[in-house]
């Protein structure tokens, strides 16, 4: 099973040179730590910053400079600042190439639920609905099963939907899976030491297994 950092590390391998990328809160934020230095990418923060730099040192902290998770950040070289309407204009306009976000559930046709548990928790959707409705390339980072052991990869989402038919790829603690355009989770890679049978048992939605499934490789 992968740690959260390993999930982030595996997702970082999907990043391509020249991309503008929006990273969600949680595991997606960790992806920034694993993007190879030779790649030139720009991280977008939907509260109005293109070019998120590393977290500040104590004496660099600026309360007027935070990311969408409200964490203090710095600005990378060549960054720019803008208002919230402009920020979502660039998101809806398709200018952000890759969106990485967390999820509570993903369905086999690529629907995602990640904003609300009815009657329990009220947080709001933030920018997630805009991001998933607009991005061409969405990767979900999440645990394969909930804390109570229920599969989070389902035939249909049971929680309120954030967006429909939008997720392209999922990286969990057990596997890398693509969403088939015809519906279904295509198993692409296994976490080291995790068997296809275990992934099968923990995937409630339709799992498509074609040929030998390789283990993930971590350099």
């Amino acid at each position: 099973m992968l740690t959260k950092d390993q999930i982030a590390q595996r997702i970082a391998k999907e990043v391509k040179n020249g991309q503008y990328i929006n990273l969600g809160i949680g595991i997606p934020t960790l992806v920034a730590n694993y993007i190879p230095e030779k790649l030139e990418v720009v991280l977008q923060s939907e509260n109005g910053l293109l070019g998120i730099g590393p977290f500040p040192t104590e004496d660099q902290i600026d309360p007027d400079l935070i990311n969408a998770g409200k964490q203090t950040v710095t600005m990378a070289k060549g960054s720019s600042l803008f208002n919230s309407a402009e920020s979502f204009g660039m998101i809806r306009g398709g200018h952000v190439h890759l969106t990485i976000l967390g999820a509570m559930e993903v369905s086999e046709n690529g629907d995602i639920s990640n904003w609300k548990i009815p009657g329990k928790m009220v947080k709001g959707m933030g920018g997630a609905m805009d991001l998933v409705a607009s991005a061409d390339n969405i990767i979900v980072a999440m645990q394969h099963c909930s804390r109570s052991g229920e599969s989070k990869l389902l035939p249909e989402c049971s929680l309120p939907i954030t967006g429909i038919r939008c997720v392209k790829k999922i990286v969990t603690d057990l596997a890398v899976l693509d969403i088939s355009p015809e519906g279904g989770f295509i198993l692409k890679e296994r976490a080291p030491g995790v068997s296809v049978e275990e992934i099968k048992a923990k995937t409630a939605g339709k799992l498509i297994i074609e040929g030998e499934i390789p283990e993930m490789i971590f350099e």
Partner: protein
Amino acid sequence: MINKTVKNAREAVADIPSNCMLMMGGFGLTGIPENCISALLEKDISGLTIVSNNAGVDDFGIGLLLKKRMVKKMISSYVGENAEFERQLLSGELEVDLIPQGTLAERVRAGGAGIPAFFTPAGVGTEVAEGKESREFDGKMYLLESWLKADFSIVKAWKGDTAGNLIFKGTARNFNPIMAAAGKICIAEVEELVEAGELDPNQIHTPGIYVQRIFQGVDYEKRIEQRTVSK
């Protein structure tokens, strides 16, 4: 130049009545109008509808207005870090419209720019779409969303001049410029107020036409929600 200066926050918010609609700039606690929030707390008003991306935290920002039961309704996108908010919402004491952040921003922008409605993909197939008109453009579905306008918008800028021109700093810009335009009366509090002509016109983010009242704020706390440092 028209002089927009008022003495302080108390004077700026003096005529804000109960049951009106307010917009408040800020994302999390960054770029919130701290002075005006304090001045509103001194007033005996209630039944406010507040448009703000977040609802502050329990003991700072809009959280203080909630605690004093001055707010009837919040129109926001994310309210995760406020236990009092969650309590009032789940108990039915507070009405809340949760709106996708980009839709919220665009509705505010539209309100200030005279666009009554627009189509957006955010929320298609979700509960946000319930009761809304949808339409297909180039093979993709979109929802019709309408503008938001307010009786008063309250914004916080870094620098401003007596003509109401504003400059923001860092990600404290967020919703502030678009809200400035969407309020019938816009109150701007700034960290540094200068005479008209002292700011470089090339650097102005919000032109003074949108701002009706401006004052230099005091004692900014700028509380940090998630102090994160590199190791």
